[in-house]
């Protein structure tokens, strides 16, 4: 097993599949009356959050607690970080406290890679800047596999602000490894340069959502910040929604079996309408549930829970 999970690219197909299979086992725990396994008893997991992200933090916290780990939440607010302590000094502090794993969310791309140089424990990237969010990609893959029965050969459209999206990068890397075909859709201003060469050969780009929808098994809508219009990525929220938002009529262009995903939090009315978000095709709530199982599997495998 790998030591750290920093990028969707860290996972080969076997390792990724092992995580998804383990997550499926973990999911059975959630159905029990006592939702707890003793696997990580006595181990310490630190949630080191430099950005507000209640969703991701509580998902990791629930995952670690269900595995009986001791969980320390270290948030930038109200800690020494606001007093200007460097990431390295924080890392050395966590190291001295004996953290077995550090789950880090950070606004700077690559911060988890830097952290991994400074601590002995495992580092899990819970979202770094505009770079990656590998456990989100794992829970997305888990959700697709659960709904559609497979990943290999699936056609997945990832729609929206790919440029600034860590979810998109991790998904392209992981889905390509697992044999799915990814098409990135958005206005040209929000599609980064050389994306196929940068991430995975065979990744397609389209600027026309309507032409893509009839041929996909999955459409994943990314959160688009309204403020992007202030930097001229698009003229207005209204125009964005008209060209790239998923509404009822567009959803009906999808094949019968296709699902609609969103990593949350949603901008209802911007990239997705309530009709779509609340439809039976939507997996948005399942994604949250699956997130806990997948993060349990990641912590369990990274911390060697399977060979103790």
């Amino acid at each position: 097993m790998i030591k750290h999970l920093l990028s969707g690219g860290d996972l080969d197909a076997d390792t990724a599949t092992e995580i998804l299979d383990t997550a499926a086992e973990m999911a059975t725990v959630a159905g029990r009356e006592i939702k707890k396994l003793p696997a990580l008893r006595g181990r310490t997991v630190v949630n080191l959050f430099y950005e507000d992200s209640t969703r991701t933090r509580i998902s990791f916290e629930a995952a670690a607690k269900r595995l009986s780990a001791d969980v320390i939440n270290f948030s930038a607010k109200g800690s020494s970080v606001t007093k200007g302590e460097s990431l390295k000094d924080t890392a050395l502090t966590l190291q001295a406290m004996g953290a077995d794993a550090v789950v880090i969310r950070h606004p700077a791309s690559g911060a988890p890679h830097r952290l991994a140089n400074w601590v002995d424990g495992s580092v899990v990237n819970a979202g770094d800047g505009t770079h990656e969010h590998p456990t989100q990609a794992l829970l997305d893959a888990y959700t697709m596999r659960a709904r559609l029965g497979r990943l290999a050969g699936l056609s997945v459209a990832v729609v929206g602000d790919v440029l600034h999206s860590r979810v998109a990068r991790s998904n392209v890397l992981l889905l390509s490894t697992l044999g799915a075909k990814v098409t990135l859709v958005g206005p040209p201003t929000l599609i980064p340069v050389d994306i196929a060469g940068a991430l995975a050969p065979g990744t397609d780009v389209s600027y026309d959502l309507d032409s893509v929808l009839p041929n996909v098994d999955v459409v994943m809508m990314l959160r688009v910040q309204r403020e992007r219009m202030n930097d001229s990525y698009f003229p207005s929220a209204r125009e964005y929604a008209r060209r790239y938002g998923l509404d009822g009529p567009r959803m009906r262009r999808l094949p019968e079996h296709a699902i609609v995903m969103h990593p949350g939090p949603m901008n209802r009315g911007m990239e997705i309408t309530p009709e779509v978000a609340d439809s039976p095709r939507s997996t948005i709530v399942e994604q949250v549930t699956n997130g806990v199982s997948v993060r349990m599997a990641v912590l369990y495998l990274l911390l060697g829970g399977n060979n103790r």
Partner: protein
Amino acid sequence: MTAYLITSVSVVGAAPTDLLIRDGVIAEVGPGLTAPDATVVDGTGLVALPGLVDLHTHLREPGREDAETVESGSRAAALGGYTAVCAMANTSPVADTAGVVEQVWRLGREAALVDVQPIGAVTVGLAGERLAELGAMADSAARVRIFSDDGHCVADPKLMRRALEYVKAFDGIIAQHAEEPRLTEGAQMHEGEVSTRLGLIGWPAVAEEAIIARDVLLAEHVGSRLHVCHVSTAGSVEVLRQAKARGVRVTAEVTPHHLLLTDERAETYDPVYKVNPPLRTAADIAALRAALADGVIDVIATDHAPHAVEDKECEWAYARPGMLGLETALSIALDVLGPEWDLIAERMSRTPARIAGLTGHGVDPAPGVPANLTLIDPAAHRTIEPAELASRSRNTPYARMTLPGRIVATFLRGEPTVLDGKAVK
């Protein structure tokens, strides 16, 4: 004053000969020289070059003496084979007045390891809003001739035009940091495949090329001298090639790191590789090397940029850009160009001395010329250990790399600043 007899040394790659240094100048050149009073330096196997001249050095004093001082930077320069460096103006306070440039100039004289020639800021506080007192700096004891807001681009086209025109009165030159600021807001590294993969905001090549294109047209329009700092892209080379073919009075420099390292170095997120302009692609490196050989690029300049540990041991986005260069530049040139001694002398000594107006530097050893020279062992290899560098900072991108060539001795006006590969003070 001690005399020095350098025996059997190859002067700029020619057949071995002897050099006698006396009273600060080259007294005699020729085989079989004798001078009983002289200290003998065995030059067997060594190459003598005119002392190297750096058009682009950050000495950090005043303001960031924790990262570098005029003295520590001068020592690093001497160890790198330099006898003169041009100190950039982005200190704190900014070198935008006669007072500050004279302070830097005086500190250089006191250190007495290289000639420190201050560069003056173009605009007050590097703010890009109004001209600094360029004439006062030119008339000061520091006799400033190169003006640069390096680290910032003089982005306002009217201000750039005025600066180019104004310095004609004292044969000054504007050295532009070519970076269209609106195209590089928040930029962290070269915009391309690697920036996309790493999720770091891209610094597109066009942001450099657009400014160079504008500036060569402005220089042509007003008939002024323009120098382009740290050219980093293949497209910039083409703009410069066309401008030079039209006769525009433009010169350009390239750094050692832009001749050797690509943007893939960013993949570790180690900010030791963060620099402005950023490391580019292999295709850019090929174009820069070709331009250096054919003269479209005139000069290798280090952009030696020391930074304190805390400014580099952090997240990439929060780190300061820049890397050390003085102690490794000659080795990189040798690695990139091979033992093309005349070309190395041209790009690292003669031409930069001419651009900076540093008479007495950049002149090949010959009877009567000031004894500013450096001796290189081209057969030696050395592994770069950051802790062994003379700079106060440790941010070298070449750590643990093995590079060809070693500076054995450097002489400044006949006085050794480096002997046996060690600084004499």
